[in-house]
């Protein structure tokens, strides 16, 4: 098992990301992140122009994205890049005899540079272990079908489309996107529709399955980092608030019921940090325990982020219920993230299978 602590390199990366996301609105935060800091290529092997770091570092980026509730397509980018990397270099954890994908290798340099945002076309609510959906069908090099609640696709340059028959890449201009009114306005959703859309075939059905499974697993681990960041912001901003908000001539944070709730939340956030680090390390190392670690992370970090955000709203009192205060962005992001890539309940069910605790 790799360390659960952060390395100095990771702390430097965190500082850079935090600075980029702190910029006044208007600047292109995504460009600063993807190209400026080089996040887009973090987990891409150096041979394809990437930084040759790993999903551990990607999870640190996610923590900062979560802490800022930043409307940047980091999760979409991670899912797309995970699918492409898997197609390009394979994965030990997924047993596939599929040959490596030349098409994916061709796409990766542009993705790694941050110039091309590749997004995986999957419903954001896809639970762990779900098979590749059959809602899109290939007819030669033309795709037809529709996928709902796809995250971050609106800024994508290329759409990576897994189908039971094969893995495809479609120029985003060839697909139709209908925006969905999302609960979490910081992560845009759309319905992506292909009408005989021209596609590049990246691999066969087995490769599609491998890329899909790896992306779900890596996405779950990285999303846990985001949830950790959301929880940390909610906890620390609430702690700050109750220290300075006076009621009954005392800081609200001096009331024991408030103190105990925040202490208990801190315990859970502390656990979330360990769990999220473990999951990031496992997917980074393609560890045999990666599926367990990813589902564990979603089962734990999703609910912790939601509770942190709910406590944040509640303990801010009236102001936390207003549009004006930032708390609501975190609440919505936490709740939507708890559904994204499977709910905690679904991950617990998946864990039961993985660790031989069958339901019946």
């Amino acid at each position, binding site marked *: 098992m790799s360390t659960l602590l952060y390395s100095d390199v990771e702390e430097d990366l965190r500082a850079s990301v935090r600075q980029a996301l702190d910029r006044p609105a208007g600047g292109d935060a995504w460009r600063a992140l993807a190209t400026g800091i080089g996040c887009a290529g973090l987990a891409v092997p150096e041979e394809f122009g990437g930084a040759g770091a790993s999903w551990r570092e990607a999870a640190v980026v996610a923590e900062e994205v979560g802490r800022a509730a930043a409307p940047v397509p980091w999760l979409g980018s991670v899912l797309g890049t995970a699918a492409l990397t898997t197609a390009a270099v394979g994965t030990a954890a997924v047993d596939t005899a599929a040959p490596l994908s030349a098409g994916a290798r061709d796409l990766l340099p542009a993705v790694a540079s941050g110039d091309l945002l590749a997004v995986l076309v999957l*419903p*954001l*609510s896809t*639970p762990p272990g779900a098979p590749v959906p059959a809602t899109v069908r290939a007819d030669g090099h033309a795709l037809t079908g529709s996928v*709902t*609640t796809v995250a971050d696709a609106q800024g994508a340059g290329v759409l990576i489309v897994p189908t039971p028959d094969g893995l495809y890449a479609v120029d985003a201009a060839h697909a139709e996107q209908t925006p*969905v*009114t*999302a*609960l*979490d*306005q910081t992560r845009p*959703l759309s319905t992506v529709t292909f009408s005989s859309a021209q596609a590049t075939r990246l691999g066969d059905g087995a490769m599609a399955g491998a890329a899909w499974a790896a992306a779900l697993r890596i996405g779950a681990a990285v999303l846990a980092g985001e949830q950790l960041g959301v929880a940390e912001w909610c906890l620390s901003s609430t702690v700050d608030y109750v220290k300075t908000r*006076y*009621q*009954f*001539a*005392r800081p609200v944070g001096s*009331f024991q*019921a*408030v103190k105990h709730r925040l202490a208990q939340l801190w315990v859970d956030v502390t656990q979330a940090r360990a769990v999220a680090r473990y999951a990031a390390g496992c997917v980074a190392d393609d560890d045999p325990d990666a599926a367990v670690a990813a589902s564990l992370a979603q089962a734990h970090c999703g609910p912790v982020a*939601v509770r942190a955000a*709910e406590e944040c*709203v*509640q303990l801010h*009192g*009236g*102001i*936390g*219920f*207003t*549009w*004006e205060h930032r*708390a*609501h962005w975190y*609440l*919505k992001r936490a*709740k*939507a993230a*708890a*559904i*994204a890539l499977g*709910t*905690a*309940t*679904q991950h*617990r*069910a998946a864990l039961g299978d993985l660790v031989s605790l069958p*339901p019946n």
Partner: protein
Amino acid sequence: MQTDELTGRVREFLAAHDPAGTQRLDFLRARFDAGLAWVSFPVGLGGLGLSRAAQPAVDAAFAAAGAPDNDPLSIGIGLGMAAPTILRHGTDEQRQRWLRPLWTGEEVWCQLFSEPGAGSDLAALGTRAVRGTGPDGTDGWIVNGQKVWTSMAHQARWAILLARTDPDLPKHQGITYFVCDLTHPGVDVRPLRQITGEAEFNEVFLTDVWIPDGYRLGGVGEGWRVAQTTLMNERVAIGGGAVPREAGMIGALSRTWRERPELRGPGTHDALMKLWVAAEAGRLAATRLREQLAAGQPGAEGSAVKYAFARLNQEVSGFELELLGADGLTYDDWTMRRPSHVDWENRSPGYRYLRAKGNSIEGGTSEILCNIIAERVLGLPPEPRADKDVAWKDLPR
């Protein structure tokens, strides 16, 4: 008065005022004048001096006859909070002036109590009222301050208002209770958008607003005591009749479960049933409280019902979103509106989830309700207090 006699009076009234052939406002005014509005109010003020228990039968008889009502959901603050306070603490003149148009809905009321710096600690409020002379040369008060969480302020004519008239006294002692005419100059009502995207509430800025002394309810410095009538009525209001099983959010969730079998999963059924049990337990507890009140057994369970309602609403709506999966990621509409009341029924599950967050804040936070239960019901000792004998102006804040 026996039930028979009362329903006889309603019958007589309906015979004399055909609901179909009478203007709505004329009908409501006549109903008020006949003492059939709120029958527990005194004769001459819309009532017959009966017990509250007599009201549901009267309302039901009017509803059955197709009579117009006074849209009670939209004028709830007037009916539930202002009216009992005016009745108890107002002068005869004040009662005569305000109660009739309040009940008919001609004049909408709102409440100017909470402030940005005085939420749970309402008695810390800082809106100032100083003695002055009005445009017409009469004695009265000049009010300055900011109020918040004011529903209906944008439609209201009148507000009940708490303001500080003596900052040198401890906080509970220097407050006076006023009625504020919102058409007076210096009243600025601004919508306060909430996390649902709507603005049910307003911020109200008061700048040199004139209030005649005749609009004072109770004595100078007696405002906190007067406000207890208002607040008690806010917290006790748990609806009139019995609530059927699966009313409220649990009903929406149960329908979803029944109608969409594809959402069911092995891990969710027990969680669903936990919520169903909690909803039913809450419903029966509220039913029992109503029986206690009807039997004249004063119960402190009102705070418990409100506390449990907020907890349940939040749990049910949170669970529903996760159950819905893809649909739980969506929202119906972020448009900024200014509704007159909460629409649990017709908005989306996402709205219910967000709006329910307010249930544990508005009308007494869940934390304050727990304090009330702990101290007033269980008799647990108060915490050490730093604000009892300190002049308001010297309180740490």
